[in-house]
């Protein structure tokens, strides 16, 4: 497995090597290309970091919605509907578990991205080393071994580049997966319906909703009564 992976990753670099007849020309071209790719890498890291921050915010927003279930349960109890209160609390527990696992995965992503930043710094150092090395190699070009050394330097750098590129792609994939996961939890929260464990809950939802509406009407009535009482007192 180890050697095959190395072969796969290095194939790209070797292909670039074969294409150019004069290795000196290749050194300059290769350097320019690497500098360009380094810019892409930096941009890629900025993007995945921003996406991860959005996921962190989303986790906070999801968590902030949990008290809705408590309010529903409280309302149900007030109306003597322990059955409905129980369902609301079950939903809360299940949503909370999902949010917690989501948060854990977002935290993993953060650790992964810290490694990515280190990888970028390493890459930057290597590109810099390549720049110095290429001038030396160009000057030594007549020496028989120079071609081999050029090949090594190019492959070494290109390999690093491909590796960082892969790490970024990986981080992007994970971010995208988590994004849809977060959205799914969000939708669950909004609809108040949690997957199959509570299959056929539309009737319950209607009841919980009705209880909620009833509560707000009661509160409204209370407010009106108080206003009326205040009015009479003033008369």
């Amino acid at each position, binding site marked *: *497995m*180890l*050697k*095959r*992976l*190395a*072969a*796969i*990753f*290095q*194939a*790209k*670099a070797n*292909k670039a090597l074969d294409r150019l007849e004069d290795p000196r020309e290749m050194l300059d071209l290769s350097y320019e290309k690497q500098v360009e790719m380094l810019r892409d890498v930096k941009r890629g890291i900025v993007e995945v970091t921003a996406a991860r921050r959005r996921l962190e915010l989303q986790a906070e927003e999801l968590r902030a919605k949990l008290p809705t279930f408590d309010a529903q349960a409280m309302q149900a109890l007030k109306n003597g509907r322990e059955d409905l209160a129980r369902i609301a609390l079950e939903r809360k527990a299940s949503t909370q578990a999902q949010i917690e696992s989501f948060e854990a995965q977002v935290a993993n992503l953060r650790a992964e991205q810290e*490694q*990515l930043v280190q*990888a970028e*710094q*390493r890459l930057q*150092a*290597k590109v*810099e*080393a*390549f720049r110095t*090395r290429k001038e030396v190699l160009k000057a030594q070009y007549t020496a028989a071994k120079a071609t081999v050394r050029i090949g*090594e*330097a190019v*492959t*070494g*750098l290109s*390999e690093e580049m*491909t*590796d*960082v590129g*892969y*790490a970024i*792609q*990986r981080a992007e994939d994970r971010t995208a997966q988590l994004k849809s996961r977060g959205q799914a939890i969000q939708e669950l929260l909004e609809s108040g319906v949690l997957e199959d464990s509570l299959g056929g809950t539309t009737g319950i939802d209607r009841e919980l909703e009705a209880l909620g509406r009833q509560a707000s009407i009661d509160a409204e009535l209370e407010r009106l009564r108080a206003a009326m009482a205040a009015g009479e007192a003033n008369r």
Partner: protein
Amino acid sequence: MIVRLMGRGQWRLDDALIDELNRIDAALDDDINRGDATEFREHLAAMHRLIEERGEPVPEDELVPSDAFVPPVDCSLEELRKLMDPDGLIPGAPAKEGADG
């Protein structure tokens, strides 16, 4: 021998460690063939430990190609299959060799 831990950089391994590395690599190949995700994860972690604890990190300003690539420690079997697929992740990769890995 130069080994790359993917996403983490390169390590230089003493020749004395190559046998041990190959032994774990063979175990990994076996896990892949059997589709044993648990063993695969354990062997992969063992390989990372071997390299990090007993290898020497390659300095940042050194440019050398690696003799071997080790997938990230949390790489799944499915992800590895994609990595190994010549038409997959890496553009311009060579045709697949024998099934020996």
